[in-house]
């Protein structure tokens, strides 16, 4: 194991996969000469050259669409969108094209494309630059969706995404780029999709945290242990499609309570979806309604004190967990 920053782990994954397979190439705004808006692609232009690392104009829909076309005809493009906020301009190519081409043409082609992009609030960037959009992409059949929260998963999942034959929406998090984590040193650390991580074991309440919120959930679990003598089990689904619902259900069978934490909006969110699945599949095991902790149902405000309360923090998760235990 080596201690590596999340962004470096992603960089390693890209470098290793580019060495492994010449069909892998990168496209994105400022990923080459500038080394990436978040420095994820640092050094790759120098190492692999302009053929394989391409700075693009600011044309999100078209660069994703080119990735789709290239993926249909033999390449494995990894497209970086500067942030999820700008992926809205590429929704047509992501949904109508990347996700549906295989199905709509009766399985004649595959689209092995990865679209990477970071999300997240907390930098006072206001409404247009603070989105969390796992839910939008989770919604779409044909897409796979990954949202790694640790350096090890960032690396392992990205390698798996690049090798996968489906279009993958790979959601990173701006807050996580600088965080260190232990990453296995062997250069073939691949994390399969569809396997949730149990970040902390416990038997009193299940807390599912998505993306950055997996970390926040762990903080909440510590508080629950220290101040309330409660053992929370913290799960990080790691990928939302496919979803390791089995692990989540097993945990709920044990704890009989479930709190879901996400940074995005509540309506039609990841938590709304997961709560529906949990109640459908484990109704008889639940001792309390499934609880959700989500971002506030507002465009993200700029002013610090407002921004602070507009996305979830550990105390809210503690409260939600306690509420599921109120009647015990």
């Amino acid at each position, binding site marked *: 194991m080596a201690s590596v920053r999340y962004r470096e782990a992603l960089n390693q994954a890209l470098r290793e996969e580019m060495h492994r397979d010449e069909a892998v190439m990168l496209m994105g705004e400022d990923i080459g000469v500038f080394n990436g808006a978040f420095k994820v692609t640092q050094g790759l232009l120098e190492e692999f050259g302009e053929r394989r690392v391409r700075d693009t104009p600011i044309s999100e*829909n078209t660069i994703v669409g080119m990735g789709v076309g290239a993926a249909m005809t033999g390449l494995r493009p990894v497209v970086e969108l500067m942030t999820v906020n700008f992926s809205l301009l590429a929704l047509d190519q992501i949904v109508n094209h990347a996700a549906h081409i*295989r199905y709509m043409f009766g399985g004649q082609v595959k689209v092995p494309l990865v679209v990477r992009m970071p999300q997240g609030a907390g930098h006072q960037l206001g409404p247009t630059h603070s989105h969390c959009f796992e839910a939008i992409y989770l919604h779409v059949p044909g897409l*796979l969706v990954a949202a790694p929260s640790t350096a090890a998963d960032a690396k392992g999942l990205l390698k798996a995404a690049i090798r996968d*034959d489906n279009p993958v929406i790979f959601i990173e998090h701006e807050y996580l780029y600088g965080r260190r984590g232990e990453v296995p040193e062997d250069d073939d650390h691949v994390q*399969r999709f*569809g396997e949730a991580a149990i970040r902390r074991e416990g038997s009193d309440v299940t807390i599912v945290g998505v993306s950055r919120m997996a970390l926040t959930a762990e903080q909440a679990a510590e508080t629950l242990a220290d101040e309330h003598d409660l053992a929370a089990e913290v799960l990080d689904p790691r990928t939302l499609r496919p979803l390791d*619902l089995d692990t989540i259900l097993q945990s709920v069978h044990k704890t009989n309570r479930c709190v879901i934490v996400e940074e995005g909006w509540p309506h039609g969110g990841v938590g709304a979806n997961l709560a529906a699945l949990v109640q459908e599949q484990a109704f008889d095991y639940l001792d309390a309604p499934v609880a959700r902790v989500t971002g506030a149902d507002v465009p993200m405000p700029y002013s610090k004190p407002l921004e602070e309360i507009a996305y979830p923090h550990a105390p809210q998760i503690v409260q939600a967990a306690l509420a599921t235990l109120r009647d015990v």
Partner: protein
Amino acid sequence: MLRYRRFEMAERVVAPEERTAAPLPEPERAREWLATMMLIRRFEERAGEMYAKAKVGGFLHLAIGEEATILGAARALRPGDYMISTYRSHGHALARGTAPEAVMAELFGRVDGCSRGRGGSMHMFDLQRRFMGGYGIVGGNLPLAAGMGMACDYLGTEDAVLCTFGDGAANQGTFGETMNLAALWRLPVVFLVSNNQFGMGTALERHSAVTELHKRGESFGVPGLRCDGMDVADTFTVCAQALERSRSERQPVLIEARTYRFRGHSMADPEEYRTREQVEQWRARDPIVSFGQRLSREGVLGEGELARLDGEAIERVDRAVDFADSSPFPEPPSLYDDVYVLGDQVGGWYSVDARTPTPHRGEDERAMPRHQLPGGAGYESEHTTSTARPIGAVQGLPDETDAEESDAEETDAEGANPDRARPDRARPDRAEREG
């Protein structure tokens, strides 16, 4: 108040440019061009009839009048080149060599359709013939074409891409974005605007400030050419030139083919946006009639040959209809096929089935025989609850289908089972919608 620019519709018809007629190819080829244009025409006509009989669902966009543009472009391609088109692409698939049977079966929504009944009229596809699809999103195919060109380049092949789209599509953001990228990266892509002078009911002059669309690439560094899209030889010559240049100079080229669709935008178009006179004027330049006349005049076609070729086209289309009619509908258990490629490294639940709250596990899907796949009547799990409805209740699926039939059907690969043909349905409100 909004004020529209006024113009006299009938005056808009531009006389074909004064230029020397493009050369004919050798006689055998010339006859094939004519025969294939006739096939496309007869196919489109029959497709329209089949739509009226409710054999075809959804939207149906016919390319009658645009055959020369389609065929001239397709014949300028090498077998390894890619062609990519729009929702008006039955003709492109046929021109590329896809069997009329497969295109008609796709219109009928049958398993033998060239997209296995998943795409319908707007989404034809034939990987084998490098026909890379019809696309329902106006302007959506341009970035894909550039990506394919990038792959040709990246892989060091000599292949090129020909991307056709409409005059309306030239106003999408993807047009400018793609022109710029294709020029910037020197991609071997020829963009062909089939300028039929309308985007649905909006005339060229009312949707574009610069109506000479071939000029639209200039500021991006994409040279423009134009051709007479009513003349197959001219279209061929210009497309071949452009492809040659694109291939050898690594350079995108934009071609504008002036053409006209004789029928409405789709089957539900009362055509209130143009005059009968205008349509008649363009019909007088029918690309098939005029090419046939030229071939007769220049001695390529013998006495009665025109009628013979036409008879063959009609017969071929008849066979396509018979085939499509006897091809089975896709079985309900195939509903979830090919949403995903089920690889080795993926576990977990892929899809959630709204009918039974039964999520689909990647592992199970890989291991399961096809007929037991999620969505199939044979699929059961411990999670299935009483809210489960029989498969026939799924919206949009034929309700007369049952599991027994599906077993019998599997052996019948040729699909020769006319009994499967569904009774024609009345279609109450479809004419109201268009898009």
